[in-house]
């Protein structure tokens, strides 16, 4: 059976909001992540790092979560940077060209550094 605890950890440092996600990001689980990011944006947080290390699976509904917020965060000087993506998850981003749209970093430290520049 699949383990479906999607948001495994959330922490903030300065103006960064780091969300560690795990399990399976599909049409069923996407809504909770979309709402969570939406709530953070509502509080004025626009700089996100999504830690994909524990994410096993993503479908187009999962890609849609980030698409629905990327314009607003970038308009406000922020971004949604991604890191620690497993190869099988990256391949779904790559399949449709989403890897060009997003800043996908190899490691967390790289994502943090890009925000500090």
């Amino acid at each position: 059976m699949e383990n479906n605890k999607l948001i495994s950890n959330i922490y903030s440092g300065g103006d960064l909001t780091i969300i560690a996600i795990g399990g399976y990001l599909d049409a069923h689980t996407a809504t909770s992540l979309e709402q969570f990011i939406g709530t953070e944006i509502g509080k004025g947080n626009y700089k996100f790092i999504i830690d994909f290390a524990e994410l096993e699976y993503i479908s187009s509904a999962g890609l849609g979560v980030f698409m629905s917020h990327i314009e607003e965060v970038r308009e406000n000087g922020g971004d949604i940077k991604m890191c620690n993506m497993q190869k099988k998850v990256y391949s779904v981003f790559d399949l449709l060209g989403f890897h060009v749209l997003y800043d996908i970093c190899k490691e967390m430290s790289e994502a943090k550094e890009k925000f500090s520049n």
Partner: protein
Amino acid sequence: MTKLFGNNELKAKGDYSELSEIRDFIRSRAFASGLDTEKIDKIILAVDEACSNLIHYSMKFNHRENITIECFNKKDTFTVIIKDNGTPFDPNKNPSPDMSEYFKKCKSGGLGIHIIKQIVDKIEYLPSDSSDPSNKLLLTMCSK
């Protein structure tokens, strides 16, 4: 709840919560068929996308509606047949999106069929008719 009929057939209701069991079902049957890991991941994603669309647009999240998912092996192929009773919709007739426009407009959603077309080896569609009330979507992966 999904229901398993025999080894190779699963019934799922019109709810996204069924997707997890649908993926488990496809994973186990695709593995047993001898597909490699990369192809197993692809057919799981294709079936997830197809079923997500059917749950939304054909079953309209109605828990009384069902889709039936069957798996078949032939010598070098693994085929998943997804049956629904909604309005026929042939994914082969759905135009592919212009991805640069899609990104420019920061759209969200509507990529499921495009993904399926990118990752499976063959898509066939048999709409319902007077002899059979079910639409059938056949997604085939070649093992070689």
